[in-house]
């Protein structure tokens, strides 16, 4: 037997579980009824739920405008306005954010900010220009 084979045999005899405690614990885990099956199904169900929620959440975030608080008195009658770099941009709606205040003066407390892009349904915003810009919008809406 060569020196190398002798060394391999020596190392192969190393016993990392002298009192067989690990062996017993692992056997208990291996033979535990349905442990693996339930764990796998639970994981699959949770993963599916998380993926669904993430997809749904992302889609609704993209679709739904964000609600921002409006200071008292800021809510005025207002139509669609397109903005670029914080300035009213009456000509082109693409790559802008659409800002709309809902309700009349003193009735609404929310501003909805829509993400930019050309939207056929909101094309009318290019035709109308809103009232003088409120300082509030300048700070809250960025294109």
């Amino acid at each position, binding site marked *: 037997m060569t020196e190398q084979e002798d060394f391999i045999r020596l*190392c192969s005899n*190393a016993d*990392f579980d002298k009192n067989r405690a690990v062996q017993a614990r692992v056997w208990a885990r291996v033979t535990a009824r349905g442990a693996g099956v339930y764990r796998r199904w639970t994981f699959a169900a949770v993963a599916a739920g998380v993926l669904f929620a993430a997809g749904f959440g992302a889609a609704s975030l993209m679709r739904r405008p964000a609600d921002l608080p409006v200071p008292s008195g800021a809510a005025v009658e207002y139509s669609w306005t397109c903005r670029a770099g914080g300035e009213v941009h009456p000509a082109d709606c693409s790559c802008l954010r659409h800002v709309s205040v809902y309700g009349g003066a003193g009735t609404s407390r929310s501003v909805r900010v829509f993400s930019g892009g050309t939207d056929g349904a909101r094309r009318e915003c290019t035709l109308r220009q809103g009232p003088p810009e409120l300082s509030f919008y300048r700070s809250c809406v960025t294109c």
Partner: protein
Amino acid sequence: MDFSTVYQELFKPVFAYVLLRVNDCALAEDLCALTWRKAYEKRNLFNPEKGNFRQWIFTIARNEINMHRRLYYVRRFLSLTGFEEGLGETEPAALDPEFCGGEEANLLRAVSRLNGRERDLVALKFYSGLNNREIARQTGLSESNVGTILHRCLRKLREEMKV
């Protein structure tokens, strides 16, 4: 095939193989449990014509370790708590003297100096009972390459363990 008999016979070499690869007793125990559970669930699929059980269980163990390593960074990213589990590239984790004696700890420490591929080859050589050709087939290396790497590793190990 009586699974419990095979388990009694092969648990220690499989555990030693996994431990030498991951260098952490607790992690080795977990990976062993995954390995044996998979073997237990798929035992009806084992085909003796393709190879013996020893080769089969070592292939499963090797795949489990590789999967663990692949998913290491994903788990680390997703972990909500501090991530302590390592890839076995550092000093061996504190060994329980009850089941890891002085010689074994010495061997683990020496093996931890090797890189991942060397450690895989050495652990397969020590515990799987495969010859160089079979190890080469499992690892995707050439037989002569396996022989050379093993020769170099064993020399390093002998030097480390003398210290």
